[in-house]
């Protein structure tokens, strides 16, 4: 079984979001970059599926040359191969991204999709467009299930579960299929030091992406960090000596006691 996981390089943020002066990007100079938790789970799922069913796992991203860092994270987790669709680092919208990824996928299989399972995050961490997986499926003519938190493969059929209020919807889908996942589907492994070293030297083929995005546009003008209430907390005290004051606020202000 051949499994693909598509991941996106996004800035790490921490305790507050700092923007670049032109308000076009998050200033990542302090904290660096990462991938979404959903996508970390997509990579883990790809690896587990090939461990259980044989075959190979592949990670792919569309991003700047530095996005090889996130691909190497995937390789260090034990994915077999990686592909970079290299851009100049500007944001591509979800439709252009999907078009480029669909082409990249077909390129891997000499014009046809070579993957049995194509995993995506349910939504990207930064822009949350909820579209790339669905649009890739549409372009490749594949079925698509989204928001999946449990997955079994039996005889070429995926049995996929999605949480809904009060329970779980179960889908049965014939492969090949696009499956978008949510954090919680598995526990992503930590890469060992040795695996990280090996991944550092692994060759990553780079392709030039091509993707048009049809009529109509959604264009970013600028970003804005919303106002947060940064009035200092009232310090009730240090250590256990604060307990009477805690009781007081729980009783008279919050009224839970």
């Amino acid at each position: 079984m051949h499994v693909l996981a598509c991941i996106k390089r996004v800035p790490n943020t921490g305790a507050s979001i700092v923007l670049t002066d032109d308000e076009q990007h998050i200033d990542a100079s302090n904290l660096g970059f990462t991938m979404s938790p959903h996508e970390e789970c997509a990579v883990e799922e790809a690896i587990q599926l090939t461990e259980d069913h044989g075959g190979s796992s592949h990670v792919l991203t569309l991003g700047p040359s530095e996005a090889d860092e996130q691909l190497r994270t995937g390789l260090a987790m034990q994915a077999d191969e990686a592909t970079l669709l290299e851009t100049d680092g500007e944001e591509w919208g979800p439709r252009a991204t999907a078009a480029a990824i669909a082409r990249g996928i077909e390129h891997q299989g000499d014009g046809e999709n070579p993957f049995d399972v194509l995993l995506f995050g349910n939504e990207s961490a930064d822009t949350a467009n909820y579209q790339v997986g669905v649009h890739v499926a549409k372009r490749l003519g594949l079925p698509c299930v989204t928001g999946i938190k449990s997955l079994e493969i039996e005889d070429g059929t995926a049995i996929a579960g999605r949480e809904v209020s009060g329970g779980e919807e179960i889908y049965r889908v014939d492969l090949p299929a696009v499956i978008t996942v949510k954090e919680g589907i598995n526990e992503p492994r930590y890469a060992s030091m040795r695996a990280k070293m090996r991944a550092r030297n692994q060759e990553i083929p780079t392709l030039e992406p091509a993707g048009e995005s049809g009529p109509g546009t959604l264009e970013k003008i600028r970003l804005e960090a919303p106002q947060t209430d940064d009035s200092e907390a009232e310090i009730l005290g240090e250590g256990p000596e604060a307990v009477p004051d805690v009781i007081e606020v729980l009783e008279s202000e919050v009224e839970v006691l």
Partner: protein
Amino acid sequence: MTLALVEHENGFPDELSLEMLTMARDLAAQEGEDLEAVVIAGEEPVTEELGAHGVETIHRVTHERLDAYAPEAWGESLAQVARETNAGTIVGPGSDRSHEVLAHAGAVLDAPMATNCVDLEVDPGGSYELTRQRWGGSLLEHAHLEGDVKLVTAAEHEYSIEAAAEPADPTTETMTPSLEDAHFRVQVDRVETGTGEGIPLGEARVVVGGGRGVGGPENFDQLEELADLLGGTVGSSRAAVNEGWRPHDDQIGQTGAKISPDIYVACGISGAVQHMVGCKGSERTLAINTDPEAAIIQKADWAVVGDLHEVVPALNEAIRERQ
């Protein structure tokens, strides 16, 4: 014309759909057009309820194979209604299902889509200046949306539920979309109901959260006890889940649960933005943290600077003594 996808239960629009109708009605008013609704499958929609929220026409989509939810068939149906009615805009609520259905419709119509909007202004030329959430709401994007057909969704809990100043008296038009087998490749096979144990995080009036500072799975016992004493439930940060101390179901934040308790007691949690977006709905926050510089202390209403392993047991004991 503005077309709103309404999700409903027994004919009544659900909470997020009602929020979305506030946004959609304003948008239709700015465009000087009618607001029409699409209701796919299920029971007959309650017309008065939709009329009260300003819906002039209801498009009820029925089809013999649409009993169980099928995302591609829903998206295709929505696209067909949009084409037939010449809709310029399709609006959906901020739910997972709506995002999925609109994404399918957008792929069919090859149209741009802006998710999780919090503000929309119509330009004279008919394009939109909009504000939408990024990073689960920790960041805003100002953007320009343009196209013959545009898709937008309303961010969760950003619009209040408001009835229209003047209720409408909607007419219902039933339509049967033309669907093929391929549209039903993905369809709900069955629904398994949950065990429903304990208070769900999203509904708890008191949430006691534990982060990396808790130090291990066994130390969550103290937090469980505090939650019990206060009639609440325990949640956690992603760090505690990644350590394997708590199940992912307990996670609060961008990729976890959204909570809205009367009080959130955050123990050994630093206050990262992705955690805090899950707690935006909390009325009050009490932080217990050894580090007086921790971001959570800035973001909380009250704080105790100290070791949670000393503070929480002492607090539990003091509460028990009072009872």
